[in-house]
């Protein structure tokens, strides 16, 4: 096509020249003047101008062709350059006869830094090949040329035109051989693999790093590596030690070999979902050893990526068996002691409870998420105010405290004891309350039982003293009874005889006798009364003392001990107490006083009651005996201690009395400011 066009141009130029030659004579005035010349001119001018124009046209074409060749060559080189460059290729030729290496230095961007087209092979090696790679390269070259290797591929570092080392892969082939078959020309390429090589190095370095990491972790933790499917490809010593399996037994297996079966399938499903997404998974797992026992591990699974995909999974596990055991022990201890622990955030009122708390309180809460208000609502209504106050007080006063409260269970009432402690921030503000909570239901029930027992003991001791006194009491009752029964048959006779005065006198005596009896019986009734929960009422001290004396007078009379009592401000001397119990205490103290002086020359018991300067109500029981020896004093309030001969006392009197007074918040002690024995009771104001 181009040729046609070019040929057209030549013809165009030729015809143009001929036409110009034909018209030329008409433009020349001189030729008009010389007609003889016109013929020649008409004949020669077209021929001459046509030939000239042909030459012009032809030359133009030739010039174009030349230009085109030059362009295409340049273009071809450009293409080749581009191809070679983008491929990282460089062509070399080694003339084995001359031992000269030629490079395609025509290329603008030489891979290697050659300032001349050819080098002798040794110089080339010396100049451009990395010293570390030289020997191997030379060996490979000669192995191939001398026929020891079937192909030549060598990787080494070469200096590029900037003087930087670049990794190249050199491939070569013998391109020419002489008649004897000896190679005379060795042709090949250099392929730039720097980037690939660098990446490889980087990966190797990274792998090395990972390897070091794995090794380091292996010292500390249980380590395993599995392939994508979960088959174990690597385990460390600790894995073998804890599981009881050998490395050989573990490799190729998956982790189901140590599966305990206690975890739900859901957990493992979620784990796989996560790690297959390339995310790390952390969880606590219970595994089974080869011998069937269990171990607990905190597991971290890290998916390892390679070429954009998950290649393997790296697992680090920490042996948590001890911790789990400790936690279990703690939970067990909490369970056994029925002590739970709790935390309350005082800003948000969020609560955090130990499992045992849910055991103590049978709250209907399977998710074990409970709010402060929920807890509050389950406190016994009668204890709610006191419960709330304790918490508010702890926050306000920043002081630890202890409370007892009842909580309503499903059916029963649970008694609990909570210890409240304070946690403060740097500024001293309360941030948290924490503490323990203990189920003391059994304890409270036992205490109630003990209380009952105590009353029984008191009752028994009452009976004992009753027994002790019974003979005397019988005597005291039977005497007035005899007055009545003895007078009865006589009354008729006296009436018949008409002795009015005597009759009246006898009736009077009989009434008195029956009053005596009823008083004693009333006293006895009190002595044996058995009550557990008697409300404390305000009682006059005088009546307490007088009622006690009903019983004690019998003994005093028998032993000829004089009893006196003195009460200050009688009408206002009042204590809030359990009447029966305090009378029991007084009877006990007075009886003891009588016993103490029974065999003495001087026999008296004095009872003083008054309000002292600190408004405490004091009752003193003083007897004519000497002050109590210090030796005895220490033991005097201990149960079963008695100075009385065998059979005379139970040794429980004073200890029980003290117990009763303790319950009243009152004290019982010896007052040593008296020369005589003085027991002193003090009721707080």
């Amino acid at each position, binding site marked *: 096509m181009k040729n046609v066009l070019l040929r057209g141009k030549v013809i165009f130029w030729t015809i143009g020249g001929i036409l110009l030659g034909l018209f030329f004579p008409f433009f020349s005035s001189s030729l008009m003047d010389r007609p003889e010349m016109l013929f020649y001119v008409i004949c020669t001018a077209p021929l001459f101008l046509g030939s000239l124009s042909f030459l012009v046209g032809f030359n133009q074409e030739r010039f174009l062709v030349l230009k085109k060749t030059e362009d295409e060559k340049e273009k071809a080189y450009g293409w080749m350059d581009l191809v070679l460059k983008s491929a990282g290729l460089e062509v070399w030729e080694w003339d084995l006869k001359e031992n000269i290496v030629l490079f395609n230095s025509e290329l603008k961007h030489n891979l290697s830094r050659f300032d001349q087209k050819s080098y002798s092979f040794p110089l080339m090696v010396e100049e451009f090949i990395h010293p570390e790679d030289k020997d191997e390269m030379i060996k490979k070259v000669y192995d191939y040329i001398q026929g020891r290797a079937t192909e030549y591929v060598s990787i080494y570092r070469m200096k590029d035109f900037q003087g930087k080392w670049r990794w190249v892969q050199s491939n070569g082939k013998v391109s020419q051989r002489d008649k004897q078959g000896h190679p005379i020309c060795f042709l090949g390429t250099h392929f730039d693999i720097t980037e690939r090589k660098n990446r490889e190095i980087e990966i190797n370095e990274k792998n090395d790093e990972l390897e070091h990491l794995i090794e380091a972790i292996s010292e500390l933790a249980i380590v395993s590596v599995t392939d994508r499917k979960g088959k174990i490809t690597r385990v460390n010593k600790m894995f073998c030690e804890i599981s009881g399996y050998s490395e050989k037994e573990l490799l190729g297996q998956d982790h189901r070999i140590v599966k305990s079966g206690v975890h739900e399938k859901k957990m493992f499903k979620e784990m796989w979902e996560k790690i297959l997404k390339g995310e790390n998974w952390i969880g606590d797992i219970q595994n089974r050893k080869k011998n069937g026992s269990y171990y607990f591990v905190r597991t971290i699974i890290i998916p390892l990526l390679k070429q954009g995909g998950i290649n393997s999974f790296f697992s680090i596990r920490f042996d948590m068996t001890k911790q789990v055991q400790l936690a279990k022990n703690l939970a067990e201890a909490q369970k056994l002691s029925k002590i739970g622990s709790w935390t309350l955030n005082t800003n948000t009122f969020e609560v955090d409870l130990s499992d045992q708390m849910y055991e103590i309180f049978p709250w209907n809460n399977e998710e074990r998420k409970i709010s402060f208000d929920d807890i509050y609502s389950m406190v016994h209504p009668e204890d709610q105010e006191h419960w709330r106050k304790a918490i508010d007080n702890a926050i306000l006063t920043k002081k630890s405290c202890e409370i007892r409260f009842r909580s309503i269970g499903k059916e029963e009432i649970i008694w609990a004891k909570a210890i409240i402690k304070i946690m403060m921030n740097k500024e001293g503000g309360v941030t948290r309350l924490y503490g323990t909570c203990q189920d003391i239901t059994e304890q409270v029930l036992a205490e109630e039982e003990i209380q009952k027992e105590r009353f029984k003991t008191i009752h028994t001791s009452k009976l004992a003293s009753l027994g002790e006194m*019974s*003979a*005397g009491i*019988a*005597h*005291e*009752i*039977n*005497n007035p*009874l*005899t*007055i*009545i*029964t*003895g*007078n009865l*048959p*006589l009354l008729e*006779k006296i009436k018949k005889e008409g002795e009015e005065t005597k009759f009246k006198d006898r009736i009077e*005596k009989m009434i008195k*006798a029956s009053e005596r009896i009823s008083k004693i019986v009333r006293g006895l009734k009190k002595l044996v009364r058995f009550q557990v929960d008697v409300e404390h009422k305000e009682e006059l001290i005088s009546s307490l003392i007088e009622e006690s004396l009903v019983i004690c007078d019998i003994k005093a*009379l*028998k032993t*000829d001990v004089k009893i006196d009592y003195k009460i200050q401000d009688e009408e206002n001397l009042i204590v809030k107490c359990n009447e029966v119990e305090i009378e029991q205490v007084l009877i006990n103290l007075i009886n003891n006083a009588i016993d103490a002086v029974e065999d003495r020359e001087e026999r008296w018991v004095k009872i003083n009651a008054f309000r002292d300067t600190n408004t405490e109500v004091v009752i003193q029981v003083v007897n004519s005996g000497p002050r109590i020896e210090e030796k005895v004093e220490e033991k005097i309030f201990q149960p079963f201690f008695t100075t009385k001969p065998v059979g005379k006392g139970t040794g429980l009197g004073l200890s029980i009395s003290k117990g009763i007074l303790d319950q009243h918040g009152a004290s019982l002690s010896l007052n040593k400011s008296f020369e005589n024995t003085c027991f002193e009771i003090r009721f707080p104001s």
Partner: protein
Amino acid sequence: MGERMSFEIYYLDDEVDLLEIFSDTFSSEDVKIKTFSDPSLFILEVNKNNPDLVFMDFRLPHITGDEIALKLNKEIPKAIISGDLNLALKSDIEDVFEKPYDVKKICDFINKLKKRD
């Protein structure tokens, strides 16, 4: 003692009202009753006059009827009238009556002793 004298009974009790009732109940033409509330006077009088029969209370100030009996002449028949329960007696006591006593039983006892005389 040729002439038959009346039957003499001494009675000791610290409950004064009982003394009056006792003598009112048991005195008759041939039974004379003398009462005491003080044990020492009683012992003195009994040993001096040797009554035919003595009745004593058991629980007395600083002494029991039982102990008093030991201080009395042996031949005098002794009886206790007591409100106490289950008395353990050491001395030679003819009989024990519980308070409140049955008048008839005591009369029978007195009559029995009278006949013995």
